[in-house]
């Protein structure tokens, strides 16, 4: 007998990916907040779901965690359907949600010791405290922690069971820049140990820094998936050439900036082209266009 209820997964999803999603739909009162998402997260990668508030990031992640039901589509997480997966499956995932989830009168160490009891092979509390940088706060009550410290406790609770797959829902919201950097180091350490990480964020630098691949969600749809440097594809190859002519600012958006420059130089035989700049869109430009114009890129 096995207590692991490995639910049957459709053949299309039988794959070694940590997460496989096809046609995921979730509706609230007739409105689709997740509107047909396909998503693959490979084992061992850090995948960031990027999108504005209300885009459907958290709903998607909660469905993958098994705490929210879906209205349509096929989902396999670590080879099982999260809607029917059992205890043994839950011991293989780690969840860091948006709510604090640990706010109480106990100390940090007591809280970690308590939640360790639910896991089969928890990380020893001392080790965990050091990993997330809470060793000095171990004897503090959770209610006395700063916002950033509390988030770190959340992360500690999420990785306590040595998960194969860790869900991080906006993990650094409320952290100061130093704490965020420490958190990034922590996630990098997890990746080095082979943990798959699926995180949501609305910080572009975070996605660029941490993620192997980024998926941009807008209005319940995945509008692009790519490594951070390649996100936006065609959008990215367009350069903007700016210069000043007769006191007025001129600009040209082009896929071939070199040709524009040649023409410009030819038109200025004396030498300098006043105010000349050539810029390629950064992650932020690409992101804003992806999110603002989902129809165009679909």
């Amino acid at each position, binding site marked *: 007998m096995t207590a692991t209820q490995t639910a049957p997964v459709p053949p299309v999803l039988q794959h070694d990916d940590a997460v496989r999603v096809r046609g995921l739909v979730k509706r609230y009162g007739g409105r689709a907040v997740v509107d047909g998402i396909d998503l693959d997260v490979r084992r061992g990668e850090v995948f960031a779901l990027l999108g504005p508030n209300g885009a459907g990031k958290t709903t998607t992640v909660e469905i993958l965690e*098994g705490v929210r039901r879906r209205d349509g589509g096929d989902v396999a997480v670590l080879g099982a359907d999260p809607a029917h997966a059992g205890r*043994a499956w839950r011991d293989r995932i780690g969840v860091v949600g948006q709510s604090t989830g640990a706010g109480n009168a*106990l100390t940090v160490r007591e809280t970690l010791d*308590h939640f360790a009891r*639910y896991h089969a092979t928890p990380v020893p509390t001392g080790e965990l405290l050091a990993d997330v940088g809470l060793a000095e706060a171990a004897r503090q009550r959770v209610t006395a922690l700063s916002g950033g410290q509390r988030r770190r406790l959340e992360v500690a609770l999420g990785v306590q069971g040595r998960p194969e797959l860790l869900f991080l829902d906006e993990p650094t919201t409320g952290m100061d820049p130093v704490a965020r950097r420490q958190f990034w180091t922590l996630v990098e350490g997890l990746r080095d140990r082979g943990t798959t990480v699926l995180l949501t964020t609305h910080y572009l630098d975070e996605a660029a820094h941490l993620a192997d691949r980024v998926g941009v969600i807008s209005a319940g749809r995945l509008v692009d998936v790519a490594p951070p440097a390649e996100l936006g594809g065609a959008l990215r190859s367009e350069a903007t050439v700016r210069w000043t002519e007769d006191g007025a600012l001129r600009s040209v958006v082009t896929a071939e900036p070199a040709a524009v420059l040649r023409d410009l130089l030819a038109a200025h035989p004396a030498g300098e082209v006043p105010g000349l700049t050539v810029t390629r869109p950064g992650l932020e430009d690409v992101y804003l266009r992806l999110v603002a114009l989902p129809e165009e890129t679909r």
Partner: protein
Amino acid sequence: MTTVAREPGGRLRWAVTDALTVAGRDVAHWRRQPAGLVVGLLFPVLLMVVFVYLLGGGIAVPGGSYRDFMVPGMLALVMLFGLEGTMTAVVTDTQRGVTDRFRALPMAQSAVVTGRCLADLAASVAGLALVALAGLAMGWRPDPGPGVVTAVGLLLLLRVGFLWVGIWLGLLARDPSLVAAVQILIWPFAFLSNVFVPVSSMPGWLGTLAAWNPVAATVTAVRELTGVPVSDDGWATEHATLLAVAWPVVLTAVFAALSVRRWQGLSR
């Protein structure tokens, strides 16, 4: 250690282990923040002192001793008050995201509730003991014998019924201010019973309503079991022991079902 979960019977063992872990968490909270629990435990004693020594002199009861009349009433009232504690704990856990965390943890989902039951029953046993000791100190002398054990059993059974009401209300309430509303509304419910005055002193239809109060059935049964004279106030009073079993069973059946639905609704 994962192998434990895969052994035959491992599931039940985990359910029990997890329930004890959850209960342990509640107990740890009480130890760390005892003020709320202590006030909750002492309040019924205070109330009993007020009624026996300050107000009871003006209330005529069968048998003549307001103290002997009051103690069983207060014991049952402790069970009703316990509902507030259950509700508060459930609302707080849901608010703080503890409930969501539990749902994503590798634990028996039943343990969230069974652990809550264990902890709350333990608190109620303490509450009963305190009121009983205060009653004894005030001169109350129940008939010794098996009746006392039965009385304690019926009281805890009533607590189980109210426990489920508390869990359901806790899952229903989106914010803690509703706890305050319940704390207020619990009073008319308590007064509309035989806890403080005999139902025969009330206007006819109100008296009937009071006699059918789930608390009243247990109060009458406990009075009978501990040797306090009970006046005949109709069918509900005559069959108090039956009702003292039936009411908690009905409350549990109805509110456990509602709570399970509500719990499942969390993942909608």
